[in-house]
């Protein structure tokens, strides 16, 4: 399966996937809760520096990853003020009016906040997703988070099955086109197409899964309750430094924002 992961030797790559997750998840939660632009902005900058310095992500790749996010945020910010419920922003100054289209200052502000929060949310996940090998992640989940190993290995198998089924799907559809199968427009056509492709796809998937299962059994999979591991996943000193360091730094940023009166209130459920 195509993931964002790119193998490289950097401090972030060398960390345990779980420690990266332990930093990313609280950050992402924070992005869901804030209601002003400064916190997301601070964390976008912090995470970017993290990726560039600790992740050794080249500026070129960083920009390639970033530009779809920027486009998304820009579109969002451009459209949001017109879609937001007018009663929320009517009390703020009117900046622009053309027919029924009205742009309020409050609308623009909310758009900026929401755009930055989405950006913060997405970028916070990157240190984990672009520097963690999926096999290592599964290993860490099994070894440290006590995920049953059968489930872990099924997840790994899925990583191989998804691309196989994708290519199979395109072959089946080409094969059907060659037979002169017309795809009728509308939902009926789509449903019929899906049904026709489903049988060969399922046949292949089931056959493949059976073969994989046999091959795994034949190498003693599931023989014992516990299995050993060639690569032991554990938290090393650098993992603790990364986790605690990130938490402390995040705490300091929040305290500073609060000191300057920039940190608004945190809402569990808020109107977007």
């Amino acid at each position: 399966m195509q993931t964002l992961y790119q193998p490289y030797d950097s401090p972030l790559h060398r960390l345990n996937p779980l420690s990266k997750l332990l930093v990313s998840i609280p950050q992402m939660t924070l992005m869901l809760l804030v209601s002003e632009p400064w916190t997301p902005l601070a964390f976008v900058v912090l995470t970017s520096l993290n990726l560039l310095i600790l992740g050794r992500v080249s500026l070129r790749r960083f920009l390639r990853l970033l530009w779809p996010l920027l486009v998304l945020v820009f579109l969002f910010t451009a459209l949001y003020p017109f879609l937001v419920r007018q009663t929320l922003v009517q009390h703020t100054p009117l900046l622009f009016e053309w027919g029924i289209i009205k742009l309020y200052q409050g609308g623009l502000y909310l758009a900026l906040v929401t755009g930055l929060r989405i950006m913060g949310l997405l970028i916070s996940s990157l240190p984990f997703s672009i520097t963690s090998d999926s096999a290592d992640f599964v290993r860490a989940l099994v070894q440290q988070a006590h995920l049953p190993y059968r489930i872990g290995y099924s997840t790994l198998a899925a990583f191989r099955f998804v691309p196989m089924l994708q290519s199979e799907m395109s072959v089946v559809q080409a094969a059907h086109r060659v037979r002169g199968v017309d795809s009728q427009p509308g939902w009926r056509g789509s449903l019929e197409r899906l049904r026709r492709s489903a049988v060969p796809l399922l046949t292949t998937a089931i056959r493949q899964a059976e073969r994989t299962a046999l091959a795994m059994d034949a190498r003693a999979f599931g023989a014992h309750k516990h299995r050993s591991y060639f690569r032991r996943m554990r938290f090393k000193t650098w993992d603790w430094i990364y986790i605690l360091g990130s938490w402390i730094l995040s705490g300091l940023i929040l305290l500073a924002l609060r000191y300057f009166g920039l940190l608004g209130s945190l809402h569990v459920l808020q109107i977007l």
Partner: protein
Amino acid sequence: MSIIEIRALTVKYARRKLAALNQLSLHVQKGETVLLLGPSGSGKSTLALTLNGLLPQAVGELREGSVHIAGLDTQEHSVADLAQTVGILFQDPDAQFATLKVEDEIVFGLENLGHDPHTMEARIQQALADVGAAALRERPVSALSGGEKQRVALASLLAMQPEVLIFDEPTANLDSMGTQQVFALLAELKSRGEHTLVLIEHKLDELMHLIDRVVVLNPQGGILADGAPRHIFDDFGPALQEMGVWMPQVAMLAHELRRQGVELPLFPITLGDAVRAFRPWVASVHPETVETAAPTTQSTPAMQVKDLSFSYGDLSALQSVSIQINKGDFLAIVGANGAGKTTLAKHLMGILRPPLGAIALEGGEFTDIPTKAVARKIGYVFQNPEHQFVTETVWDEVAYGLRVMQEDDDTVTRKTQELLETFGLARYAKANPFTLSYGEKRRLSVASMLALGQDILILDEPTFGQDERNATALLEILRGLNQQGKTVIVVTHDMRLVLENANRVVAMSAGKVLFDGAPAELAGKPELLSEARLTLPPLARLSALLATEYPHLRNVLTLDNYLGLKH
């Protein structure tokens, strides 16, 4: 003591009426190399699964008898215990991986057994060195070639240090390069003499010198013959041919000659044997009776490809390919996996839309013709027949194309009936296509493609995964269609198919056309063959060996060529 002891074994699968194995008894001595043969459906793979306890512990049902491996009863000992004694290398290189990386794959079995990391490191190094794959250790399995995948899969078995190794058609999904790699490994294993080897395989000529013993299963799942290879192929040859079982090509030639009353001094089963066995017979051939293939006179173009290039993302698949396909050609497009054969064929059908001006169909611009009209002119048979099935019965499957083209009911009925009879499928008219055997599915996919009476038929790897009889039957049909004037285009890496059937061959490598001409001419260019990573079939190699003494044999490339020699 026998390392494999099978006593009166009867095995059944759920929802099948007949037993897959029937009262089968077999003893294999430690260190023996046994070749297991039999028609498709005779239970070869089933037998392989019983040897490590997967049957009955994971699939199937053991009705009677017993299997002991190195003294262990497979019904009493778990598959996990037996895994350290028996390893199976399966056919599909992709389906037998459990992890994403080579190293993870090698340790997978050892981890399951709870070995410590120190032992594992030593075993990884040893196993990878044994298969010559030390450089692959850090690679993702998805980036390996077919041959490399099988080597890694074998290394993952060797890491568990089994005494018995079973190879269940390990080269069936590989091109000739991959096949050579696997055979080289087999020879290496055999020469070390540490393992008992059981092989299921049908590319036999290159293997025969490794085989100590041949066991032939009959269609009922019992043993038809068991003995030394020369004895089996000599005495049971006609019976094997009858059942559609592959045998060494040189042995097949010996039987055909015997039918003509020629007795050879030695019954050949390897190329080395064959040179000695056939030399006296060949010596008396009149040089001028050697037929040379008549050059094709037809040259009305059916399709023209001009300067076609194509790439998948950054990966270039075709580089300015230009060929002309003439009406009535039996054209083979050959090359190793990834050479661009299928990509070219997909452009011919418009599955991949060719750029303007790149392909002309009967003189007209291809891109101007709507897909439906192309389907009237060209039929395309995919590698996996199941991919093309769109209906629920065999009858509807053939009738489908006719109905799409809005033929009237009478025509649909008449043509469908005709085709089903031609392809020997009439008695399955009401069956679901997915329930047919592999060979029948293949025939059905060809039949349903021909319903519209297309003039051009393109087939992707038509003989892939078929037994001798099905492969021969299909090619006979294709030759018949060709003789009726249809243009047949076959994508393949099977040079035997090419030499026996095609009148023209296009050899590709890395997206470029290396050669375009008569098959016999390509066969005489070893440097081109190796560049296209192709290997000649056994009989063509035999004639190359004999040609050092008898140069007129150079163009004798197929069984029919040999039988046409006059004395």
